[in-house]
């Protein structure tokens, strides 16, 4: 069964400045939805509104057509990878996977560079490895949807390719909403792409659309 997560009619103001004014976005399970936008356009704010951690003057977040508040409190429904590192520094890689009830051998097989690193504290990993652990737990933990805010940050090109393959595999199990500035990688993996511009979302299909909307220059 296909499930949907929609954000509709979202308005967000910071003082006199309107950040989001007419947002519609739809995610489906077994699909990757990309969200692009320049800095300060409100991508992370939109994710936080969907999660329920940021209040907006008007919003309707719907799961399978039913309005849901504080979706972030339901980890079986929605998981969130923030753009910063969120795993407590003092934890070891094995502890993190145990917390999320994910077997270490599966992780090791998927990312062989973590062989014999189960006893490492996450703060002793490189930035790319730390991010890989975070992406893995969010993508692999059972839930219907996951939102990834700048997942490719800190990753080197080889790691990015691995993560893209991993996300394409995992989309069979959940729906993803991903935002990142590396638009080419995002376009590679996404089934739908929205561009957030001037507080509105625009559904785009090709890189030419992004050019027409002024996000890239071809």
């Amino acid at each position: 069964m296909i499930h949907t997560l929609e954000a509709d009619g979202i308005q967000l103001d910071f003082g006199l400045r309107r950040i989001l004014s007419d947002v519609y976005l739809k995610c489906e399970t077994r699909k990757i939805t990309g969200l692009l936008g320049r800095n300060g356009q409100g991508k992370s704010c939109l994710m936080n509104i969907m999660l329920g951690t940021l209040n907006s003057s008007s919003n309707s977040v719907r799961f399978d057509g039913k309005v849901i508040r504080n979706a972030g409190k339901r980890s079986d429904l929605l998981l969130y990878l923030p753009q910063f590192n969120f795993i407590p520094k003092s934890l070891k890689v094995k502890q993190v996977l145990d917390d999320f009830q994910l077997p270490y051998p599966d992780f090791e097989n998927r990312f062989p560079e973590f062989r014999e690193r189960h006893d490492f504290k996450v703060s002793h990993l490189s930035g790319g490895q730390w991010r890989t652990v975070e992406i893995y737990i969010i993508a692999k933990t059972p839930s219907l949807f996951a939102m990834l805010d700048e997942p490719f940050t800190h990753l080197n090109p080889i790691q990015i390719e691995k993560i893209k393959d991993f996300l394409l595999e995992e989309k069979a199990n959940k729906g993803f909403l991903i935002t990142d500035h590396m638009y080419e990688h995002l376009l590679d993996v996404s089934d739908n792409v929205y561009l957030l511009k001037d507080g509105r979302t625009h559904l785009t299909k090709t890189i030419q659309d992004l050019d027409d909307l002024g996000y890239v220059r071809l």
Partner: protein
Amino acid sequence: MRKLRLITRFYNGVFLINFLITLSCVYSMRHFGDDVYKIIGLLFWYKVISLILVFYITVYYRKNEQYYYQNLGVSKLQLGLTTSAFDFMLWLVFILVQLLIGIPAYVFNIVLWGVLLIYLYLYNK
């Protein structure tokens, strides 16, 4: 069980400061001797306010980590309420023991230094 483990882990991060505040209450009671009933109310509010402050400061300085607990299904409110309730019960036990039988100075010192050494050991582990 997993939730309990996560809450315990969060509590480990705030235990020492809260425990030192509890011991400072016991120390104050010992100092006041027979006039201890005059300061019980003050100690109560001292403990309650410090619990709120410690939680607020912890959440503020470790706000990124809140997403870790949230993704595991444990909200900030759950973390705050359970750890504060447990710590308050611990405070109550110490206060009652001091009121009813009095904690001898050597026991007080053993508890204080014991906790500090265990904490130091765990921190360096």
